[in-house]
Every structure is written in structure tokens, then in C-alpha cells.
């Protein structure tokens, strides 16, 4: 089983939403997945429980799961012990100053070996000058550190992603098949899984 740890020292960047999206994508592709919600607020666990209450089980037993998604809390230090167990670390952020500052400070503070496992996911991306500049700064910082990968962005679509964490009896990608969200996540997931499998060598 491979561990994908979703981490960031800042709250509100979309860690739980990304965790739920990955689980939905894996369900959509019949890949067994389990969840450890290490956030005391338990947002992702509540989402999974809400889906189960609506008659849809989204998580598999750890014994048969191919992937374990670990959703951590957005507070300083809370992801530290989970990072050591990660095959891949996902760090979502919104490409604006506040998020970029926190996420890059966190990135330079972790070990080189952990940096090599880290993939950044720009979340709620809008093609504004400020956000394009933000992405460029992250790209430059990763080149400077010679570690980390910048994944394709997930766009800002509150009408599509906003209701995800409510939970539903229908898979998110079946429900929103006409909104193009599947293509967006597939771009992220293909690179993510490639990285996970690359780590096996």
C-alpha cells in the first residue's frame, strides 16, 4: 500500500477537498483506497461518513487498499510525523502571496529527502496576473531547491468543487461529468501515480 500524505502548514488551502477528490477519482477508477484523517476537525472523515450514510461506501479496508490517503491538519508541525511515512507528499496552495509564503517556508524547512517526494498542487487557480506570477515564483523556488514538482492547476470553480465535501450518494465525477473536472484531476493524478510508481524502483 502506498501512502499519499496531503500536507501544508496553512489552513484553507484545500487539503481536505483534494483528499476527497483523490478518493472520488480512485473510486471512479475502481482503485481501492483508505483514509487516515489526522486533522482533529475530521472534515474528510465526516465527508466519508456522510457518503456512507447516503448509501455509498467510499473507503476500502486497509488490508485491500492500494493507496492510503493521509489528510493532515493545517497547523504548524501537525504533518511532521506523517511525512516520514509518505511515498508522495501533496502540498495544495492557492497561488497568492499568503499561501505561497507559508507553503515555501514549510518546503525549505523539511529534509531534502522529503522535499524530493513533494508535489505542489495549485488550487482554485484563476488566470490573473497575480496568480500567474505566483505560479512562476513557486516554479523558480523549486528549481532553486532542485526538488519538488509543480503539478497542473485545479481551477477555481466553486459551483463544481464547492459542494464536494457535503457528501453524496453519487460519485463526484459521475455527477459532474459534463463540467470537465475529470480531465483536470486526471492530469494531476497521472503525474501523481507516476511519481508513486517511480518511487518503487
Amino acid at each position, binding site marked *: 500500500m502506498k501512502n499519499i500524505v496531503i500536507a501544508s502548514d496553512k489552513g484553507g488551502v484545500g487539503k481536505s477537498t483534494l483528499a476527497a477528490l483523490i478518493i472520488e477519482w480512485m473510486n471512479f477508477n475502481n482503485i481501492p483506497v483508505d483514509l487516515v484523517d489526522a486533522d*482533529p476537525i*475530521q472534515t474528510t472523515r465526516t465527508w466519508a461518513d456522510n457518503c456512507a450514510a447516503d448509501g455509498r461506501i467510499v473507503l476500502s479496508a486497509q488490508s485491500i487498499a492500494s493507496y492510503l490517503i493521509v489528510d493532515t*491538519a493545517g497547523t504548524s508541525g*501537525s*504533518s511532521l*510525523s506523517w511525512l516520514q511515512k509518505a511515498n508522495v507528499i501533496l502540498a495544495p496552495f492557492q497561488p497568492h502571496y499568503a499561501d505561497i509564503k507559508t507553503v515555501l517556508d514549510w518546503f525549505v524547512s523539511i529534509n531534502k529527502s522529503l522535499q524530493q517526494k513533494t508535489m505542489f498542487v495549485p488550487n482554485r487557480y484563476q488566470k490573473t496576473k497575480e496568480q500567474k506570477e505566483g505560479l512562476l515564483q513557486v516554479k523558480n523556488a523549486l528549481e532553486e531547491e532542485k526538488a519538488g514538482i509543480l503539478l497542473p492547476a485545479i481551477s477555481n470553480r466553486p459551483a463544481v468543487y464547492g459542494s464536494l465535501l457535503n457528501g453524496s450518494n453519487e460519485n463526484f465525477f459521475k455527477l459532474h461529468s459534463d463540467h470537465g473536472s475529470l480531465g483536470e484531476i486526471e492530469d494531476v493524478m497521472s503525474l501523481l501515480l507516476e511519481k508513486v510508481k517511480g518511487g518503487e524502483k
Partner: protein
Amino acid sequence: MRKIKKNPSLSIKNEHAEGSITDTSVNPYFPQTKQVNEYEYKITVRLSSLLLDSLKNVVNSNKAGGNFQYTNVSDLIRKALEAYKNGMALTAQRSKDQKRETSFRVSNELRDFYQSLPENAKSEIMERAVSTYIKHKI
């Protein structure tokens, strides 16, 4: 005259007298309750306030995810001191931010080690040991 029987419940006894029901040395139903505390000695240090918050977050996050390796912040600080005693190199530097006083208990052996540290550098060593520990060892 009828002899008045004494009500046994009203009798005054020396409850802790030898052989009585509360004499814990002889009664198997009252085993010795004195706890043998491994961590007898209390140490107080001044650590970075942010670092202490991070330690609390580490413990809370671990517990939320079902990992009870560290039960509290003191446990984490104690493990860091132990790691330093066992040769962990201090790679993290001391921060310049606000300090907060915190106490933790240690064993006899760990206390001796702590006391052997240079007098005016104990808090600095502790802060660097804890920072290094959470960065590299947990």
C-alpha cells in the same frame, strides 16, 4: 436487666490498625496503591512559543490519525532529550521568537544527564534538541 447488644456498625475502630480491613499491608483486596513513578524529577525550561505550539499540533495530529506514540508534549520533549543523550547531533538552530516556560518530568538517569549540561545553555540545548528531534526523528 436485659443486656444491650452493641451495634457493630457504631463501634469505633482504629481503621488503620494492623490487621484491619484497611491495613493495606495484609489485605489482598487492597493492594499497595503507591505508584512507582519512573519520572520523578521535574525540569523547567524556556522554549520557543511556536515550537511548543508545533509540539502540541504533532501530538494532536498523531492522536487524530490513531498514532499514540507520543501521549503528550512532555513525552515528546523527554524523547528529544533522550535522543540528544544518545548522540543526536543538534542540526537545528535556536529561534529568536518569544519564549514560554514549560515543565516536564524525567527519570533519575536523564536528570543526571540534564544536570551535566552547561549551566547557562540548558534551555538553548533543549530547544535545539527538540527542534532537531521533530525535524529528523519523529
